[in-house]
């Protein structure tokens, strides 16, 4: 769901196809459009864009009320041991059933939630734990709360399971028919196939892509899938899981080692002026306190090692490791508000490297106009992208709305090296780090991205070298020493390329005393004696000179010696759940890791006798659990991290060790997925009185108008999407003759019914418009698109690929000119997969 895998990730799609041919796997595709993926699947169910939570919620309802789920002991054992189904929730909690579609805690203005009522019921806090772990850990230990209260019989009305049962009771096959627009029979086929292919001997997988993320309820759609998979016992097991198909070579890496405003590398939060983050101690206690009974109990080690990496020798215990000099965020500084602040003239200088917001940005017209407000901009890319050329020939310049003479932006274009022209690593969508070697120098003045940032940093550090000012301490003391060893650059013309190895070694972490790489994140310290850029990558450089991302020994299953899967070469996360509560494999067919009571653990008891028993993985898979913790081990109450977690707490990154069916903290829009209509929709919400996600991110500014619910001027639903022949905003494809030839022109997929209503003929031009913009495209009238009947009303949907811009060998209008800036409240992603529009025959300006 939410993915056209055959088109957008075709090589990965070979594997489900192989599973079908070799193992009779059933492939099902639930998507508004009939795509290349649908054509290759056994089942295609069309649903209206934005109705996913109704479909998934109804599967959850169907599953937990089914005979199979209630009678097969597998499901009960998995759910009671590995999820929070049995946990009791605060009696103050009120569900959407009681509050007309919102949860308890909604602020009087309806724009934000306080989540205190979503919390667990807990036993009394334990007696304070003994110190001696470290300066910050000792403080965390004093904050450990009591264990959550549970009812393993799942009967208590306040237990998570009963709350879920009530919450999803109204998500019926009939409701699916009315809201999603498919038939109840089509729905039941999918629900039963999933249920019947989950259990002790079989697992099912759910795969998604940006078709699920780009919504005002994007996070909650994915949550619904994760809940369903947890209820079906499909997490942590081979063939199970929820797979995100991400779209860029190292988009996972740029999330892990975040160049994102809210995150430090390896999922530490960014210091925030609005929180109690005054000192490093405040920061650690605020961020780690609520999660310290998970593996995040090691937060002090991760944080101190990060600040040591940042400021090197200048970071000391006395100066809080330089924490005082590190920037704090003060609000949402993500892509959309950043471009809006740029449009308002607040941002003066802009680095755009390898992205093309003039085409790829939501409400791209507004983003192009924002670029004209800058004092200066640096673009680094291969070709003269639309972003680089906005001042010269953008639609706004051609129309006379902007004049080059009035655009004061000083623009630099710096040519970039191609991947084959530099050494480095990518992290793929399965968390696998893979090294690419350098094959040749880049041509002319083209340089690697790292070269640019390293050189810029050197020049700036020179400028601030003698500054006595406190505000310059951070840049002055930034540890910045990645000059290559002579042998690294000996074969090449360019001699000042920073050392990719030194960078990866710092990301991996090493000891301060002897610069020795850390083999595992278990060796990190909170006393300043280790440096580590991103703890989750520790192990990629386990010893000096060894790069596990460059391992290239495949096998016929997990291939543990091909690249390096973070964390610690674990390919299937939470794989403790691949064994039952006693540690035995659920079945021979689904064996992955299990407890071997006879194996030598490698440790000795106080009397010096070898201790028996450890987790084993014949495939070489990394074990995502404490290797010698027996399944029956009971965690200590006054403890942090692994010491608190018990032998069946498989979900080691959660502070209760369980998969979260109900989310007590961490989401801003509710503890359970709930159907809200897209921000722009042709229909009213048929499930609740509340129309849209009440806390969705909305920006009511000039140039970003929204359409009303069921607005007669904009009656048609539209999704933007991608094609196999192009990449994103087209920078890496529209300039390539082979790809430009394969897919030369922008088109719009339209159903024959809509074409007839609007007098549109196949291959002729159509104009699509919204309150934000207007574009023209060729009409592709196809039976792949079908109108939906939503509660008796006909709803048309069209689809537009968004790869085109005015530059390159395949030029066309910018589909993102149509899109509004409106976003998911948890992650500020935009709602590009569903909004409303109108369409007419003919080109812009009335031409045919």
């Amino acid at each position: 769901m939410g993915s056209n895998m055959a088109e957008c990730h075709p090589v990965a799609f070979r594997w489900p196809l192989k599973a079908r041919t070799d193992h009779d796997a059933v492939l099902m595709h639930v998507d508004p459009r009939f795509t290349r993926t649908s054509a290759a699947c056994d089942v295609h169910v069309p649903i209206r864009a934005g109705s996913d939570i109704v479909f998934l919620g109804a599967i959850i309802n169907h599953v937990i009320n089914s005979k199979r789920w209630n009678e097969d002991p597998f499901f009960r054992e998995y759910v009671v041991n590995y999820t929070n189904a049995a946990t009791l929730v605060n009696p103050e909690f009120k569900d959407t059933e009681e509050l007309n579609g919102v949860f308890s805690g909604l602020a009087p203005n309806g724009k934000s939630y306080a989540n205190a009522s979503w919390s667990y019921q807990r036993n009394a806090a334990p007696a304070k734990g003994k110190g001696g772990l470290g300066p910050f850990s000792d403080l965390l230990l004093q904050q450990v709360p009591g264990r959550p209260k549970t009812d393993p019989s799942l009967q208590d009305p306040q237990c998570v399971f009963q709350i879920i049962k009530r919450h999803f009771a109204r998500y019926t096959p009939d409701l699916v028919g009315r809201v999603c627009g498919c038939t109840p029979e089509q729905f039941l086929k999918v629900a039963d196939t999933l249920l019947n292919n989950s259990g002790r001997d079989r697992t099912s997988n759910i795969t998604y892509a940006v078709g699920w993320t780009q919504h005002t309820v994007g996070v909650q759609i994915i949550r619904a899938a994760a809940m369903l998979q947890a209820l079906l016992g499909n997490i942590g097991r081979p063939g199970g899981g929820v797979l995100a198909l991400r779209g860029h070579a190292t988009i996972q890496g740029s999330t892990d080692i975040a160049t994102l405003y809210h995150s430090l590398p390896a999922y530490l939060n960014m210091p925030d002026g609005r929180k109690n983050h005054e000192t490093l101690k405040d920061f650690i206690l605020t961020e780690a306190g609520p999660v310290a009974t998970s593996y995040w109990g090691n937060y002090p080690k991760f944080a101190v090692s990060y600040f040591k990496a940042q400021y090197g020798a200048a970071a000391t215990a006395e100066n809080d490791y330089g924490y005082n000099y590190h920037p704090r965020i003060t609000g949402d500084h993500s892509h959309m508000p950043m471009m809006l602040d740029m449009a308002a003239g607040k941002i003066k200088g802009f680095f755009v490297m390898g992205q093309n917001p003039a085409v790829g940005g939501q409400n791209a017209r507004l983003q192009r106009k924002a670029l004209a407000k800058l004092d200066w901009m640096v673009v680094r890319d291969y070709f003269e992208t639309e972003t680089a050329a906005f001042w010269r020939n953008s639609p706004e310049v051609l129309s006379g709305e902007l004049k080059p003479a009035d655009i004061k932006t000083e623009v630099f274009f710096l040519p970039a090296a191609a991947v084959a022209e530099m050494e480095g690593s990518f992290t793929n969508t399965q968390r696998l780090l893979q090294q690419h070697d350098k094959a040749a120098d880049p041509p002319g003045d083209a340089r690697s991205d790292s070269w640019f940032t390293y050189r810029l940093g050197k020049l700036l550090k020179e400028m601030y070298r003698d500054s006595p000012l406190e505000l310059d301490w951070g840049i002055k003391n930034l540890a910045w020493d990645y000059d290559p060893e002579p042998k690294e650059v000996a074969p090449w013309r360019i001699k000042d390329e920073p050392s990719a190895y030194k960078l990866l070694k710092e990301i991996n972490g090493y000891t301060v005393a002897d610069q020795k790489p850390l083999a595992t994140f278990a060796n990190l310290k909170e006393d300043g004696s280790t440096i580590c850029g991103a703890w989750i990558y520790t192990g990629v450089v386990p010893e000096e000179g060894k790069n596990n991302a460059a391992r290239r020994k495949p096998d016929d299953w997990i291939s543990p010696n091909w690249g390096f899967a973070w964390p610690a070469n674990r390919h299937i996360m939470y794989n403790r759940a691949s064994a039952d509560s006693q540690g035995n494999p659920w079945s021979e067919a689904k064996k992955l890791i299990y407890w071997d009571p006879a194996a030598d653990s490698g440790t000795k008891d106080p009397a010096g006798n070898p201790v028996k028993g450890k987790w084993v993985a014949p495939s070489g898979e990394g074990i995502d659990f404490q290797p010698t913790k027996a399944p029956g081990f009971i965690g200590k109450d006054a403890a942090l991290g692994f010491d608190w977690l018990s032998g069946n707490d498989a979900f080691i990154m959660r502070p209760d060790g369980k998969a979260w069916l109900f989310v007590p903290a961490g989401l801003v829009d509710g503890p359970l997925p709930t159907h809200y209509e897209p921000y722009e929709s042709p229909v009213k919400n048929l499930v609740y009185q509340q129309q849209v996600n009440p806390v969705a991110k909305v920006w009511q500014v000039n140039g970003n108008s929204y359409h009303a619910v069921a607005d007669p001027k904009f009656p048609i639903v539209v999704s933007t999407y991608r094609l196999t022949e192009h990449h994103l905003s087209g920078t890496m494809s529209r300039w390539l003759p082979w790809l430009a030839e394969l897919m030369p022109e922008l088109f719009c997929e339209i159903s024959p019914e809509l074409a007839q209503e609007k007098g549109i003929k196949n291959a002729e031009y159509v104009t699509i418009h919204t309150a934000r913009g207007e574009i023209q495209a060729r009409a592709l009238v196809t039976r792949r698109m079908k109108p939906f009947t939503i509660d008796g009303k006909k709803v048309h949907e069209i689809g537009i690929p968004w790869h085109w811009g005015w530059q390159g060998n395949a030029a066309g209008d910018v589909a993102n000119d149509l899109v509004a800036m409106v976003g998911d409240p948890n992650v500020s992603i935009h709602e590009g997969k569903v909004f409303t529009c109108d369409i007419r025959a003919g080109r812009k300006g009335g031409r045919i």
Partner: protein
Amino acid sequence: MKLSRRKFLKVTSGVVGGGVAAELGLLGVNTAAAAAKANKVPIKKGKQVPSICPYCAVGCGQIVTVSDAGEIVDIQGNPDSPINQGTLCPKGSATFQLVKNEERWTTVKYRAPGSDRWEEKPLDWAMHRIAELTRKTRDANFNEFQDLPDGKGGTVKKRVMNTYALASLGGATMDNEWNYLHQKLMHGLGVVYLENQARI
């Protein structure tokens, strides 16, 4: 049913070819302009360097072939990779043209404020100018402290050590090593408008 490798490729090839592109051809869309620029398929001969496909996040292995003269002459799927076993999709198969492309810019271009044209500039000049602009913009717009809501309806002076005048937007096909280096420099400067394609 077990499939031979050859038969498997046959089964799966339908996925990546044809489809919408073929339909557009039938629509009469003119591909001549693009076709005229299509390069000849190079010969695979020379030193083989392991690489990774620069497009989507599947992470297909590639082999870059380099001639004796040190030029990249071919890029194909790596048959050893357990991910793609030598196959590539249309984009991956076209990677060679991303490297060897007449339209690729290989010199620094500069557009002065208000100008209607690009000028060519030396790389070193551009780097010094960019560093100077970065410093000036930062120094003129740096906040050590800021009044922020105290949660009780008032405000309180908090340490922020940041600048809102600089912004950075990166792509997600750039190395892990660059991401690390770049976040480090931006955080060193106090930049908080730090974003990446990974957001969207």
